[in-house]
């Protein structure tokens, strides 16, 4: 059994949307190095409930690093200090006795706070709805190999398809840009022969939706790539720009 240690937390508490929030200090004495960051927050919440206080609201689902639900700004870094890691896969062994950790929600105008650390990321869903799909005939399953796809193309598309839509790219971007998210979706779908027919329309529609949702400009800081839990390359943004300019030359309207 590993020794337990003490962690000081400064957590953003906000009762609801449009309400003022502030950082509140908590001290946790029984932190175990094997706990994940979210388990540490669970322990805090048990303590708060026992004290008759309101527990801290935070988002999570799978706790396996694949769903993209958890989203915390930990000491000023989206998903905490480790590269290629979701908040749920960050473990307390990365911290030592007496450390102070500031926990804030992902911040952007397009990500309004719902409560405490929970933000509304449905703006990303609306970008997908604008064109992040491939229109196919529904009904019986098509023959899998009727449209051959080059292995290299398929692998590259899969790299971009690994985006779990957590929104860390937006949270870490000084401009609150969703370019990496939108770029990843486009780089995934625009690559395939199945995605080709709607390529221009999709690109224009998704870029326009991204603008309409109030996400900022990309200034090529590449901080998004640094915080991305699945390591999407900013090459996705370059591909988005290239496709957008091609659509523009072709006079495509969304």
């Amino acid at each position, binding site marked *: 059994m590993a020794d337990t240690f003490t962690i000081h937390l400064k957590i953003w508490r906000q009762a609801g949307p449009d309400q003022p929030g502030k950082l509140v200090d908590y001290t946790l004495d029984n932190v175990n190095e094997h706990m994940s960051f979210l388990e540490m927050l669970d322990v805090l919440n048990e303590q708060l409930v026992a004290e008759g206080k309101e527990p801290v609201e935070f988002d999570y689902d799978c706790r396996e690093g694949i769903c993209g639900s958890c989203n915390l700004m930990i*000491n000023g870094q989206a998903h905490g200090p480790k590269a290629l890691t979701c908040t749920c896969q960050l473990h307390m062994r990365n911290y030592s006795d007496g450390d102070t950790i500031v926990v*804030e929600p992902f911040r952007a105008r*397009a990500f309004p706070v719902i409560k405490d650390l929970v933000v509304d990321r449905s703006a990303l869903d609306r970008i997908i709805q604008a064109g992040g799909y491939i229109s196919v005939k529904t009904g019986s399953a098509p023959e899998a190999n009727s449209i051959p796809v080059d292995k290299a193309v398929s692998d590259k598309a899969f790299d971009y398809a690994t985006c779990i839509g957590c929104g860390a790219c937006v949270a870490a971007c000084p401009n*609150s840009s969703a370019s990496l998210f939108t770029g990843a979706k486009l780089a995934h779908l625009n690559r395939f022969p199945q995605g080709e027919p709607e390529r221009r329309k999709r690109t224009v529609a998704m870029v326009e939706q*991204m603008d309409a949702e109030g996400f900022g400009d990309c200034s090529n800081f590449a901080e998004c790539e640094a915080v991305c839990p699945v390591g999407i390359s900013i*090459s996705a943004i*370059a591909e988005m720009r290239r496709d957008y300019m091609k659509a*523009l030359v072709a006079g495509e309207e969304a």
Partner: protein
Amino acid sequence: MPSLLKALQSQVGRKILSSITGIGLIIFLIGHLAGNLTLFGEANAFNAYTFNLESLGWILYIIEFVLVLGFILHAYVGISIWWRRRKNRPEGYEKYESKGGPSHMTWSSKSMIFTGIVLLVFLVIHLDSFKFADTEMTTLNGEQVRDLKALVMEKFQTPLYAFGYTFVMILLGLHLRHGFWSAFTSLTMRHNKLSGIVYTIGVVFAILLAIGFIFIPLYIYFTGGQGALISY
């Protein structure tokens, strides 16, 4: 073409505009530095160069018009990105840190708006001090020409001018360190293998250009305009 206008207002279009004007301004800076370095040529080289430039007449006006347009568009996009940045994150972080790794969050990239605005203010002062300044006339091949070389020598012997100019050129180097790479990246020239090379070229280019511009005022200041490299 309504779709073109509309597209240029989208964030992707604005970025392309920013990079095209940025690359244009980089080309202008290379030409400007090359011209300035004629100060170290033979006695009349600099005045002959400026005289020839001014003799271009309407060609020069076209070049100047394109330059002014480029500067205005570039500054407009830069300032509007900064403006939107403030608007798009109304409540900032109590604590914010870069995660490092592939990130290009540097002093250079974070200060683009500051270095950009200083360069814009500098540009106005610079045009007033040299291009639109009253100068003595001198005779070159039997013609009366502006003695800009004498003006440069005079200005750069005052500490405020020599060191103020040096300071702004250091900021120019910082602006270019991020700007050079960013411009090519925005124009989608981003191949995983080439990207690192473009970034390195950008850093080297920014340093060389800044050194080139800084060398002139410091040399004139510290040699009192009588240095061996400058002939009369």
